[in-house]
C-alpha cells in the first residue's frame, strides 16, 4: 500500500514537472555557443577563452530559429559599449567595429533558417600580439534581417547577443570595492537600495551579493535578497534592489555583504547604512493625531502636577481636632476631598488623627458645575468686598495657622463651617468610604 502511495505521488510529481516544462514555449531567434567545454559550465551560455597574444582559436556559434516562419538572421561580432548602470551591452550592427570585436571573423554574416531549425556558423578568434593581460570582451549577436519600420513614435527591434570573453594569461588583478550603497525613493515612490560595485581589476568577477534590511529598533528582518552578478573588469555596475514598501514607515538598518573569489581565496566586502522610510499620507495623519493626543496628555499631566505643587506650596495648615473626618475637613474648607487627599498624600481609608496637620490648599480646582455657574452668572456691579481675615483663628478648637502667623482672635471666618456639625458619611458616593478617625 505504501509503495502504491509512493508511486502515485511520483506520478503526480511527474505531471507537475511535465506541465512546468510545457509552460515555456520555445520562441524567437537566437544563438548559443556551439562547442561548450565540459570543464566549464559557463561556456554553455557564453564564449570563454584563455589564450596568449598572437594565438588563434577556432569555435562556432549555433544560430537558431525557434519561430514558426523561415527567417534570415544576421550574425555578427561587435564591440562592447558601456550601458547605463555599468551593465554589459553590445554596439549596434551599423557601428564600426574597432576594438575586441575585430578579433572575431565569422564564416557567414547571415543564415536563412526554416522554422525550428539551427545552423552552426564557425568563426576564428585571432588574438593580436601585444594585447594586455586580463579579460577582453566582445559580443556575438544575432538579429533578424528586415527593413526598419517607420511608424510615428518609437519603433522597436530586437536581437540576442552573447558575451565573448578572452582572458590573456598573466598577472591577473582582482579588485572589487563597494563604491556606493544608499537608500532612495524613485519617481513611483518605490523604495530602493542602490548598490554600486567597482571592479578595478583586469578580469570580470562573479560577486555574490547578500542584502539584509532589519528594523533599526526591533531588529526584525524586513527584507532580504541574495544574488550573484558578474561585474565586468574596469567597470562600475549599479544595481537597484526594490524593497518592500512599509506604509507605516520606520527606521531601518541595511547591510550588504559581497563575496568574490580573490587571488588569495574568498574575499568579503561589507557595508551598513541606516535609513528612514517616510510613512504614507494616511499613516502620517494617524501619527499626527496620536502625537497630538500624547502631547495633550503630557500637558495635562504637567499642568496637574504644577497645580499640585502650587497647592502644596500655597496652603494653610489645619490641625485635626476630635470628631473631624477627612471628608468633613474637605467639606468644611470647601476643597475637593480627592484633591485634598492628593495634596496630603492620603490613601484609603483616609484616616486622620487628632493633632495631625492637614494642608489646606488655597488654590482649589474648580469643578465643572462651578465653572458653568461662573459662565452663566449675570454680570452685576461689584460690591466692595468684605475681606475675611485670611489668617484668623477658627473658634477655640479648630485652627488654621499659617506659618509664622500669630493667633489674632476667636471670631470664626464667615465661610468656615461649624466644626460641631459632624459630616454624614455616605451622602456622597465619591467620598472616602471610611474617612473617620
Amino acid at each position, binding site marked *: 500500500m505504501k509503495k502504491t502511495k509512493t508511486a502515485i505521488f511520483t506520478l503526480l510529481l511527474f505531471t507537475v514537472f511535465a506541465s512546468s516544462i510545457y509552460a515555456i514555449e520555445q520562441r524567437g531567434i537566437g544563438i*548559443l555557443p556551439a562547442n561548450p567545454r565540459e570543464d566549464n559550465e559557463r561556456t554553455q551560455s557564453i564564449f570563454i577563452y584563455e589564450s596568449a597574444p598572437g594565438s588563434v582559436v577556432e569555435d562556432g556559434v*549555433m544560430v537558431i530559429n525557434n519561430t514558426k516562419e523561415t527567417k534570415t538572421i544576421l550574425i555578427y561580432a561587435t564591440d562592447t559599449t558601456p550601458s547605463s548602470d555599468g551593465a554589459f551591452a553590445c554596439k549596434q550592427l551599423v557601428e564600426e567595429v574597432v576594438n575586441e570585436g575585430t578579433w572575431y571573423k565569422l564564416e557567414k554574416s547571415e543564415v536563412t533558417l526554416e522554422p525550428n531549425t539551427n545552423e552552426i556558423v564557425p568563426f576564428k578568434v585571432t588574438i593580436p600580439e601585444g594585447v594586455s593581460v586580463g579579460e577582453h570582451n566582445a559580443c556575438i549577436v544575432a538579429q533578424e534581417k528586415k527593413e526598419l519600420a517607420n511608424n510615428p513614435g518609437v519603433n522597436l527591434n530586437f536581437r540576442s547577443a552573447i558575451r565573448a570573453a578572452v582572458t590573456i594569461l598573466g598577472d591577473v588583478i582582482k579588485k572589487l570595492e563597494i563604491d556606493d550603497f544608499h537608500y532612495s525613493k*524613485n519617481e513611483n515612490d518605490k523604495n530602493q537600495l542602490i548598490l554600486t560595485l567597482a571592479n578595478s581589476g583586469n578580469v570580470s568577477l562573479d560577486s555574490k551579493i547578500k542584502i539584509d534590511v532589519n528594523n533599526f529598533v526591533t531588529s526584525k528582518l524586513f527584507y532580504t535578497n541574495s544574488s550573484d552578478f558578474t561585474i565586468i573588469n574596469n567597470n562600475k555596475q549599479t544595481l537597484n534592489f526594490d524593497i518592500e514598501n512599509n506604509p507605516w514607515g520606520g527606521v531601518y538598518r541595511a547591510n550588504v555583504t559581497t563575496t568574490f573569489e580573490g587571488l588569495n581565496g574568498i574575499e568579503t566586502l561589507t557595508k551598513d547604512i541606516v535609513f528612514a522610510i517616510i510613512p504614507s499620507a494616511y499613516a502620517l495623519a494617524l501619527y499626527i493625531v496620536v502625537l497630538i493626543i500624547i502631547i495633550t496628555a503630557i500637558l495635562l499631566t504637567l499642568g496637574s502636577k504644577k497645580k499640585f505643587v502650587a497647592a502644596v506650596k500655597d496652603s494653610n495648615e489645619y490641625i485635626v481636632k476630635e470628631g473631624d473626618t477627612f471628608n468633613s475637613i474637605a467639606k468644611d474648607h470647601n476643597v475637593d476631598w480627592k484633591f485634598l487627599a492628593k495634596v496630603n498624600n492620603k490613601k484609603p481609608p483616609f484616616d486622620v488623627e487628632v493633632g495631625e496637620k492637614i494642608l489646606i490648599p488655597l488654590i482649589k480646582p474648580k469643578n465643572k458645575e462651578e465653572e458653568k455657574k461662573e459662565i452663566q452668572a449675570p454680570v452685576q456691579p461689584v460690591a466692595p468686598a468684605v475681606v475675611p481675615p485670611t489668617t484668623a483663628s477658627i473658634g477655640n478648637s479648630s485652627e488654621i495657622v499659617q506659618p509664622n502667623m500669630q493667633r489674632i482672635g476667636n471670631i470664626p471666618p464667615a465661610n468656615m463651617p461649624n466644626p460641631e456639625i459632624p459630616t454624614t458619611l455616605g451622602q456622597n458616593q465619591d467620598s472616602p468610604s471610611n474617612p473617620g478617625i
Partner: protein
Amino acid sequence: MKRNKTIIAVSALLITFVTGATSMYFMYKEKYGIVRSATTAITQIINPGILSTDVVDASYEPVASPTFAMTDTTVKFSCQTTTGTLGTSTQQIYVENPDAADGGWTLTIAATSGATAYWNSAVDYDFNDPDTLGCEDGATDSDSLGGQLSINPSVGTLVKATCRTCGITGITKGSSSAFNEGTLDSITLLSAAAASDDIGNWVFTGVGLSQTIPPEQPAANDYSINLTITVTAV
C-alpha cells in the same frame, strides 16, 4: 499487488495523454541541448532554448511592428518635453530564458542606427544631445540637432509571464538615464543575476520615456526613431 500495478499503469497512461508529454518522461539531453525521445514509436526534436526578447500582446503572442507613441504636443517657442511609456498591456516587453543563460543576462536599449541616430521627419531633432538638457544643439556631438531622450526603467513593472515556477527574484531594474552621444549610447532596462531563474519568461511594462524637444521644432505627425532592445548572456 497486481491490481495496484494496473491502477498505476492506467493512471500513467491517462496523465500521459492529458499532458501530451509522452516523450518528456524519457527525454535526455544530447550535445547542444537537442532533446530526443528514447522511444522508437514517437520521436521529437526540440530546438535548444535560446535567450530572446520581443514585444508580445496580452496573450503573449509576438507583436509584428511594435511602436510606442509619445504624447502629442504643439509648436512652442521654448524647449518642451513629451513623454511616453515603453511597454503596455497590449505591447509588453518580453524576455525568455529557457535555460540558455545560466550566468545572468542584461536587457539594454539603444538606437538601431547607433549614436548618430535622430528623430526622423522633415526637420529632425536629436535623441542624445545633453546640451542644456537637450534643449539646444551642443558642440560636443557630431550633428546640429538638439533634443534628448531619457528612459526610466525603475518605474516599470516586471512580472513573470507564462512560466509556472519562475519569479522576478535576482532581476533588477535599471536607473533612469538619458542618452548622451558617445558617452551613454545604451540604457539598461534589466539586469538578471546568475541566481535568477534559469528557466523563465517575464514581461516588463511601464518604462518611462521622456524626450526634450528644442524650441520652434516644426509641426509634423511622423517623427520616428528606431530603437533596438538587446538581451545579452553575460
